């Protein structure tokens, strides 16, 4: 029984310390020499039972298929983007709990889709929208224009109030490098942990317009730091998406590949990070954009749809007079 008493003593010692998981794990992970020793260390209640609750703190809870389905049905709703073509293609819209990526050459409509879905989600009371802007593409005037279109049947006063409400539900952060982005995401995670107890309207859509403009400067070359930052950002985004039922929408640009064909930027390591990848293209001088599925968790790839971006300019009231 000497061997079983040792992990017991060490377990209590490490509980009193800062609880650094790596040190305790390296002590407990001594490989048993024989099968009998292994069986004894597992079935020995005194030793393993003391360590077990500690270990259970260090990993996510076990779920089974039924619990996963319930969580998906109750918590993970679809957020409409406002463009019917995309919504029908995705089976309802952007899915909460998933990371959706939009890839396309410049001026193919990515920012317009981001702005439209932000306005629509804020307008329809789904929740708060957080817009992380890396290339100064967020335009309040355009949001006002969209809300104007949506509330075309309302009177002046009601329109003002609606616009105010929508604008107050969209939070815009400007970040210009990857470290600032990671900082913003960590702060958001911290705030959401606190917020679970209070009943404030919580965030349901997180848009990062052009995450590729943050990552391309650090990627490239033989160093692995760039990919490390990319993978860490991806993991935090997916964690936020899943634990707090947020839909994350990021945009990516395209680069030249072999033979002059355009391909999505950010390389091979990024391909396994988003749940859904959509490719947007727009013919020159036309309002009609094509969107096709590059990757989806349960739809077939290659499905396409079209949608129209209305670029009708509208006069936005200042809030004075009328």
């Amino acid at each position, binding site marked *: 029984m000497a061997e079983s008493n040792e992990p017991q003593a060490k377990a209590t010692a490490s509980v009193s310390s800062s609880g650094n998981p790596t040190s305790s794990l390296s002590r407990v*992970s001594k490989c048993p020499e024989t099968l009998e020793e292994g069986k004894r260390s597992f079935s020995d209640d005194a030793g393993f039972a003391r360590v077990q609750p500690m270990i259970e703190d260090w990993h996510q809870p076990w779920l089974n298929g039924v619990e996963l389905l319930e969580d998906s049905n109750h918590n993970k709703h679809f957020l409409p983007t406002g463009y019917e073509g995309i919504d029908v293609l995705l089976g309802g819209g952007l899915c909460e709990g998933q990371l959706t990526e939009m890839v396309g050459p410049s001026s193919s409509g990515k920012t317009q889709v981001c702005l439209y879905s932000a306005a629509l989600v804020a307008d329809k009371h789904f929740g708060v929208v957080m817009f992380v802007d890396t290339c100064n593409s967020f335009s309040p005037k355009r949001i006002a224009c969209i809300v104007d279109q949506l509330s075309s049947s309302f009177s002046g006063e009601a329109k003002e109030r609606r616009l105010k409400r929508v604008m107050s539900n969209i939070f815009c952060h400007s970040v210009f490098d990857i470290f600032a982005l990671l900082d913003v995401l960590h702060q958001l995670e911290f705030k959401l942990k606190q917020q679970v107890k209070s009943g404030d309207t919580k965030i349901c859509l997180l848009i990062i317009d052009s995450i590729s403009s943050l990552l391309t400067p650090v990627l490239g070359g033989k160093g692995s730091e760039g990919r490390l930052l990319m993978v860490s950002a991806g993991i935090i985004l997916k964690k936020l998406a899943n634990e707090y039922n947020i839909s994350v929408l990021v945009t990516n640009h395209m680069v030249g590949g072999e033979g002059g064909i355009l391909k999505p930027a950010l390389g091979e390591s990024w391909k396994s990070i988003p749940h859904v990848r959509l490719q947007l293209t727009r013919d020159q001088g036309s309002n009609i954009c094509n969107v096709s599925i590059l990757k989806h968790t349960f739809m077939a790839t290659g499905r396409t749809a079209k949608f129209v971006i209305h670029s009708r300019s509208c006069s936005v009231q200042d809030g004075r007079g009328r």
Partner: protein
Amino acid sequence: MEENPRGWIHGDETAKAMLSRILTERPFLFLPPLHRVPLRVGNVVEIAGPSPSAKSQILLHAAVNCILPEEWKGIRFGGLGRMVMYFDLDCRFDVLRLSQILKHRIMEAYRSTNNTYWKEKGEHQKNDAPTTHMYLCDDELFLDCMRRFLYIRCYNSFEFLAALKAMHSHSQRESEALGVSVHFLMIDSIGAFYWMDRACQPMPIGGSKRKNVSLQSLAEAVVQEICKLLQMQPVLVLATKATIFGAGTSGNDAQRAFGKWCSEGKMDSRTSSREGEKLMYREYMPSSWQMKLYLVGNMEHFLRMHLNGCSLH
């Protein structure tokens, strides 16, 4: 030493007896979609391929074949009726896809039973009574199967290690509750934390007596845990890995490591010059793995054709 040294030399059983014992205790299974490959519990299989190949789909189809029962209310499903433990390191699992595949298989089995039934009766029209009966049975069977699918998500290597350590006790609890044992241990994307682990500096934490935390030590710890699990509870381990085509030294290390573990046939498809794979962990896989298979990019296409053949997605 009172033991008879002659008795010690004679051994416990002959090779023939051992082979027949092992083949009955751990038979080869030919589960679709991997039915071309003979697999047994205790094997560790890695399915590698570039990103948009159907690796996770193979895992899901294999999981569905495992959780479906052999037979339910007279209808043959041909599954194993055992549990699956799924480690989602990529965090990209979608339960809707799993339920889609499961429902599809159930419907298919009902439809084929209906077809044979009506063929025997000589009728050409099917009425609705069997279909309503089908919808009633559906939910119960569906929920029963979904209960056999155990899932955990890990956000870094330490959580993965902790989950592996806790897996045995958890699977014992679930086995007692459901009455079936675990057959598959699936790891989606074993290389998910590669870049994060690689950046761990091999610094000693708090003194020189403890193990350093580095890519190699983490990989060794993972391998050790899986070895221990296989000793305690024989399961079939399926792991996916996304191959990343990168240049540089990692490619050479990979090819040197392959020489130890691959069979000749697979080696040829691997050593194409542009394929540099990130897989530092594979150098540390100890030789106690019984068999390790590699299903590489070009075989993915082969398997995908079979996937399309056996289920209509």
